[in-house]
């Protein structure tokens, strides 16, 4: 496979094609008759997936550095360029988003019956934006993609969302926009500081990273500016309240994209930018403890709040907040295990929560309600759907053997060395997550069949099975054999941790500090 990919010069064009293809197809979607729209989107999505999957083989897992790097001048006198590339931190997110794309299109196949052209056009634009965020290696480019994403998401929620969509869309955009305002200032200031120190004013990620020691005196302010943007996006408690609304009101595709990719941009931002740029401050005791505490509070808080949600999507939205707390905890756990775990949680959460949103979307398409109370006993009339939901729920709960466990386990075990008490608190989430998801599962799919309106609900159609089956397969695959993924992210995670550890006391085995010999 590698040889074949090399022979077609894969590494030279793949990233550009991934970025450009959706945008290139966008006018087609808009201009051709409406009945073609979804087919074009599907074609593009499948093409992207097939092309993108090559990364799985072409990506050199043993190389921690950035790969497939391209640096084309754009506004060169200002040090801005079209700079893209991937490494272990981003490659999985890129793969996840190209793999998710056909599913999202297919998942929307029936649900979107109005203004299809606009919908699929926005979906394509969204895809470019998402990939751009993960691929950009130029701070200017990154910021552009980062913000650009808001527009398609705004309209996706605002036009095809459910009843309270305007509020949700507005809240989403304002939260995110306001959150990332200061990041722009921080980026510009960073370029200036590094430029003053080195004589090269450049937005290039590698340049800034290599000279990040020049940023140290301003680390605190710059970090706060970055962290605010990322914290809102993740979202970290207490910046999370936009998420339940956005998730709840968005159409299925929007919720899925939001859960699978958009939330990960925040955590990715921490891993890629906020911490490596300002390690001394970001990893200082106070900041580390604050972030880890916020993460853990978020984990438990969101789980508890999820438990009492009357709305299925809202419940899953809060569960997202809870899960992403693990990612943050893992990032600040700062061991190879915890960082690997954080990346794993990012992937797993995408798959499980994506699947949950798909299933809820399917329910919504049938019954036009997300209220848990409107359902009950569905397992009798829709056994396959119930099965899919139960599997997905357990994957989200973190049942070992399914994908959710791997990441959470690694995060917790990896972070334990640095934050034992917090990790113990976070571990209680295994109880709460089971509580909210099982309670919801019970009230929707089990219990007495109370609502006669649900009688004709029908089980999964072939298309819906085709959407869910790959996800469930992925859950089991990652749950039992995550090795290939872990190996691809390991080198970069290790490099990251080695960098980080020069600012931290290494997380030593506990016993080294405690043993005073045999009593």
């Amino acid at each position, binding site marked *: 496979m590698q040889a074949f990919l090399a022979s077609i010069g894969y590494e030279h064009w793949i990233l550009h094609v991934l970025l450009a293809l959706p945008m290139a197809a966008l006018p087609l979607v808009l201009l051709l008759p409406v009945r073609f729209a979804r087919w074009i989107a599907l074609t593009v999505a499948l093409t992207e997936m097939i092309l993108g999957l090559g990364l799985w083989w072409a990506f050199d897992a043993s190389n921690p550095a950035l790969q497939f790097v391209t640096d084309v001048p754009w506004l060169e006198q200002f040090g801005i360029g079209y700079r893209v590339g991937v490494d272990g931190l981003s490659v999985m997110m890129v793969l996840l988003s190209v793999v998710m794309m056909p599913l999202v299109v297919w998942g929307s196949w029936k649900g979107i019956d109005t203004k299809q052209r606009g919908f699929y056009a926005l979906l394509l634009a969204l895809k470019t934006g998402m990939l751009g965020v993960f691929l950009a290696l130029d701070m200017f480019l990154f910021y552009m993609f980062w913000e650009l994403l808001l527009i398609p998401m705004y309209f996706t929620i605002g036009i095809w969302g459910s009843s309270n969509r305007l509020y949700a869309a507005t809240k989403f955009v304002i939260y995110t926009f306001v959150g990332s305002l200061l990041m722009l200032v921080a980026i510009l200031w960073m370029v200036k500081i590094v430029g003053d120190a080195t004589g090269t004013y450049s937005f290039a990620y590698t340049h800034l990273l290599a000279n990040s020691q020049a940023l140290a005196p301003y680390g605190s302010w710059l970090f706060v500016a970055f962290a605010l943007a990322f914290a809102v996006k993740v979202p970290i408690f207490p910046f999370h309240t936009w998420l339940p609304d956005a998730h709840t009101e968005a159409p299925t595709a929007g919720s899925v994209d939001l859960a699978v990719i958009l939330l990960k941009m925040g955590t990715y931002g921490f891993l890629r930018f906020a911490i490596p740029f300002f390690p001394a401050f970001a990893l200082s005791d106070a900041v580390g403890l604050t972030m880890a505490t916020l993460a853990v509070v978020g984990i438990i808080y969101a789980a508890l*709040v999820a*438990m009492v949600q009357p709305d299925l999507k809202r419940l899953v939205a809060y569960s997202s907040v809870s899960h992403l707390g693990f990612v943050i905890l893992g990032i600040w756990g700062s061991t190879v295990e915890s960082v690997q775990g954080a990346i794993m949680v990012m992937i797993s959460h995408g798959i499980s929560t994506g699947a949950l949103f798909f299933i809820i979307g399917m329910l919504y398409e049938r019954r036009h309600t997300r209220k848990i109370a409107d359902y009950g006993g569905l397992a009798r009339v829709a056994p396959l759907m119930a099965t899919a939901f139960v599997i997905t729920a357990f994957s989200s709960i973190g049942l070992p053997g399914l994908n959710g466990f791997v990441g959470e386990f690694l995060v917790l075990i990896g972070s*334990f060395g640095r934050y034992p008490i917090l990790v113990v608190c976070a571990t209680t989430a295994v109880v709460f997550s089971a509580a909210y998801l099982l*309670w919801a599962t019970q009230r929707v799919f*089990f219990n007495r069949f109370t609502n006669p309106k649900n009688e004709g609900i029908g089980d999964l159609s072939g298309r819906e099975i085709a959407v869910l089956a790959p996800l469930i397969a992925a859950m089991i695959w990652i749950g039992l*054999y995550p*090795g290939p993924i*872990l190996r691809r992210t390991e080198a970069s995670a290790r490099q990251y941790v080695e960098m980080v550890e020069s600012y931290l006391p290494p997380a030593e*085995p506990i016993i080294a500090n405690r043993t005073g010999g045999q*009593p």
Partner: protein
Amino acid sequence: MARFAWLTILLPLLGALANGFLAARRPSAKRLVSLIGPGVLLAAFAVAIGAAIEVAGTEEAIRIQLWTWMPVTERLHIDLALQLDRLSVVLLLVVTGVGSLIHLFSIGYMRSDPGYARYFAYLNLFVAFMLILVLGASLPVSFIGWEGVGLCSYLLIGFWFEVDANSDAGKKAFLANRIGDFGVLVAMFLIWWTLGTLDYAGIDATAAATLPLGGTLATVIALLLFLGCTGKSAQIPLFVWLPDAMAGPTPVSALIHAATMVTAGVFLVVRTGVLFSLAPFAMEIVAITGALTAFFAATIGLRQYDIKKVLAYSTVSQLGYMFLAVGSGAWTAGIFHLVTHAFFKALLFLGAGSVIHAMHHAHHAVGAHDDAQDMRNMGGLRTAMPWTFRLMMIATLAIAGVPGLSGFFSKDEILASAFARGDHSTVYLVAWGLGVAAALMTAYYMARLMAMTFYGTFRGGGEVEGHLHEAPAVMTGPLVVLGGLSLVGGLLNLPAVVGGGQWLEHWLEPVLAPANLLLDPLHLPHGTTEYLLLGGAILIAVVGLTLGFRMTLGRPIPLPADTPAPRGLARLLEGKYFVDEFYQRVIVGPLVWFSKTVLWRGFDQFVIDRIAVAGSARLAQGLGWLGSRLQTGQVALYVSLFAVGAVLVLRALIGG
């Protein structure tokens, strides 16, 4: 064969898949399901026997590396590996063996259920997970099984999900288990950060050298692991789920909630015996918790009317014995009781299942809606169901501790061990006392159960009585096998006093060596004391049984509707000490209230959304509104503003 031990997992797994597929596509293909479901189990059992023979020839553990599960770093490199040694093989045989019997029984029991295929899919899946638990070579791998059996338990308890109570029970079971799993997880973190390994072999090898004996760390680890065991094995304080779990089909209760899954906690303690041995305090806690559970569950069992509930509390109680054993360092006794209990309790449950099956069909035939599980509706069934009666009687005698039957030996060994540990700490003596009292009650409530069910006259009405039949052969067959095992199971570890060779003790020796090395050897009582204890045990069994039969049959048994409301102690016992209510009131209710009112409505929606977010938006808007009010349209005001500005600018430039 040992190299193919993974087949024992794969076969049930494939069975589960096949049955699951059938459940989705061809639910009516019951014949095929009947073939696949028990078939894969029997095949697995065959493999297990083969593996056991091979294991018998070696004292070393056989490690079967399947693939690398989590290759994270050099220090955290978790293989998906199986470990076949003398401990796991015992469990392997019990699970596949008893499992096969129960699968066979289920063919008859579940025949008419529309979810037949689904049932076998779950049951097969359960066996697969149970075997992963047992065979796993490291804590994380076992944890797959550990939680997986919880999943299957959840699914099977809520098998008839359309009854709210059943789904509730399933959820409750999983949640209680999860609370325990929290402990296991944290224990794993601690073990890894202290010992740098999660493999059982690694733990055995490094723990003693790394962890100080009696140190806090070892105690904490052991207690956390034990927390997991209290969840999985229904010990105080997490035992509440098991009685509710009886909502599932009765064979499930037999397999999962009596014979196999619930004993996983005992298995885990023995498996990580080294860690417990390093923490004497934790051992005491384990022992006393076990004893207390044995005692209190037995008291509750005294006043239950639901035949399965009695057995459920009996199971909780017997599990308490097992923990008393392992808490006393009598690992073998624990495993021994685990095995014998698997035989006689599976038998009891299946027997009860047979009774319920008969009652249910009889009710169904006449269109009655009485509770098929309430013993007050039964009575005199021995004439209609002679085989069931005889076999259940064997099991009753075994559990009551009638000499010669399996339960007698295992229970006696436990009590003796606890008594022997009394040298170390009076805690063990207290535990022993509780155990003895529980034994008396066990004999009593079992006698009561038998008396209410099989003796006297049928209280459910003559019409129903006419429709009572013995179960078909496919159901009684497994009962016969289990009956035989209950009779002779004691041979496994026959004590020296009756001329036995303590075979199981020797068999497990190599596995338990690292743990035993750290413990003071048990000085089991010999001579007079031993005989006294033995005599006492026999006396207790006889007294308990006699009392049970006498007191139950000595007065009329009212129908459920005529039963007077219990008072005093009886009310407390019938209400199961109101532990459920207590948890509901003190933990669940307040937590839900707190989450909903304080966290969600209060903090999320009010403080963050309303005050912080909407508040700042309102503030900005308010400021804007204020500003626009200033814009009155009056030139005079505009000019004045201009003048003020001019003064400010002039001041800044000139005054500066």
